[in-house]
């Protein structure tokens, strides 16, 4: 099941299947270590559509809510 990163629950993991929103965003996220094929775990999300914090490997990244909406995850179940 494909869901956007900003719709996942805390602690939920998934494999990144697609990063939308153009080449620029794709490169910025890849540079920080968030790219297609990697496993991502959501750590927390701020209230009122605030930034989402995720764990990728040993890195933690915080990204804006709508940015996170462009990252599509495949989660189990």
């Amino acid at each position: 099941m494909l869901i956007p990163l900003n719709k996942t629950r805390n602690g939920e993991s998934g494999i990144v299947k697609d990063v939308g929103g153009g080449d620029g965003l794709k490169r910025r996220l890849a540079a920080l270590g968030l790219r297609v094929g990697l496993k991502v775990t959501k750590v927390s999300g701020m209230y009122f559509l605030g930034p989402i914090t995720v764990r990728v490997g040993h890195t933690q990244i915080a990204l804006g809510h709508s940015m996170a909406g462009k990252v599509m995850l495949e989660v189990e179940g």
Partner: protein
Amino acid sequence: MRKVLLVGNPNVGKSAVFSRLTGLEVITSNYPGTTVEFRKGYMLLGEEKVEVIDVPGTYTLEPTCKAEEVTCEIIKEATKAAVKTGDIIINVVDATNLERNLYLTLELMELKIPVIVALNMWDDTKHRGIHIDLKQLSDWLDVPVVPTVAVTGEGFARLIGQVYKVRPPKIRKHTRDERWEDIGRIIALAQRLEHRHHTFWEKLHDMTIKPETGLPFALVIALASFFLIRALGEGIINYISIPIFDNIWTPVLLKLSGWLGGGGLLHDVLVGRLIAGRIDYIQSFGVLSTALYVEFAMVLPYIISFYLILGLLEDSGYLPRLAVLMDNLMHHLGLHGFAIVPTLLSFGCNVPGILATRVLESKRERFIASTLISIGIPCAALQAMIIGLLGHHGLLPVMVVYGTLGLTWLVLGLIMNRLTPGFSPELLLEIPPYRWPPPKVLFRKTWWRVREFITEALPLIMLGVLVVNLLYYLNIFDAIAGVTAPVVSGLLGLPKGAIVAIIIGFLRKDVAVGMLLPLALSVKQLIVASVVLATFFPCIATFIIFIKELGWGDMLKATAIMLVTSLTVGGLLNFVLSFF
């Protein structure tokens, strides 16, 4: 001269490596974007003097944001020349984040200049269960790989030794996907991860970034910082500064006063006017009495305690979490969460704060952040004086000043966000792991900042007191006070002489607050005067950095905003307080 460029991702310890190599003093912290300027230094390689350049961090050589564009441009310029001049790159890599860091490594190697990889924070890999096979890694890359710990100096002898031997790599230009594929292969060969249970730091991380626990935690940190800074500052004042002045300096000054005949221009400029035959460190207003007392007994203790606590917050890695928690609020002000870092720095001094706004993406954000800082954020010297002045009247008046400034900052931000064209970009930030701040690094950093304060502020404070004395003798203030009286007395409810303090505030805010004392203001007047001094023209140092960073046009705009804000807030406050 040959050059060594230190290049790497943000927050991998480039500045610490730079400091090790050159012996220069550089501020380091645990958040991405500590270094916003290029820094140059020199090191000796045997007989040869080599230039070392600390380059601000970047994730790739294809810039993904404004701040990276400048960095990438300079790396490319430098590398064009490098082939002829024999320059090399030391690629500083975070060993605990090898996979992501290697992307830049591969890009650098494609530039065909000699690259040495410094696997920094090597000590961290052990207790985080990361095993890196150095031989496999350096064989695959075909460049020297040296594990280092910049904080302790481990591995530096070997790193420097490699500078002689290194040769340009022979690899062709790759596509982005090819690079990631290569990295996949390298990681599979050279890195093994051990599964570790959640450590204390990781639990702390989750706790401090989830809003339900993180927001209360942030409040606790803010209050604890405020009271710790206050307690430590007061402690130094009462147990060190005041005894030194009373027991050692006063007798010296009295002797000098005797020699100078107890009065006259020179006497009053140096020692100050004697009050009932004695030196009153606050009211005498001499260059050797009040100026020194303000600097060393009122302001410096707070500078020390502020930078100690700030350093602790910087080095632990807490600030990026705060940026995430504050992101919503900051968006309403036209900024994003990371703007909280320059804002916090400004509580020490607005100058490094405004410089640090370089981490923000757009010119619009930099303008809003810098203007808000100049108006709403009082520097440590000003705060020390406000607390020194109002503290006797209890906590409430101090809180009214802070509350008013906070509200001004907020409301002005909301307005500026509406009126400044453009939008605020979304937050995208790497959150570094928590680290225990190394005490040596922390104390050294605090000492550098304190020393810089002394060398930069002391001459200005003495000059300020000198100028005030001369202007009084020339009776210039009376003329000005007559002209500005309708605003100062009518609107703000202050005695007309308070204009003198406001004018001197342009030179030094702390001296300005000191000048309020002889005016014998009521508590309400002190509150209004403190707020007006804080929001009015920033000191000259802030002015200069504002022009340098944002240009005359933006500075004039900011000045207009300051004047309007300061008079509006001061007038309103005077009106509201008259009901109590």
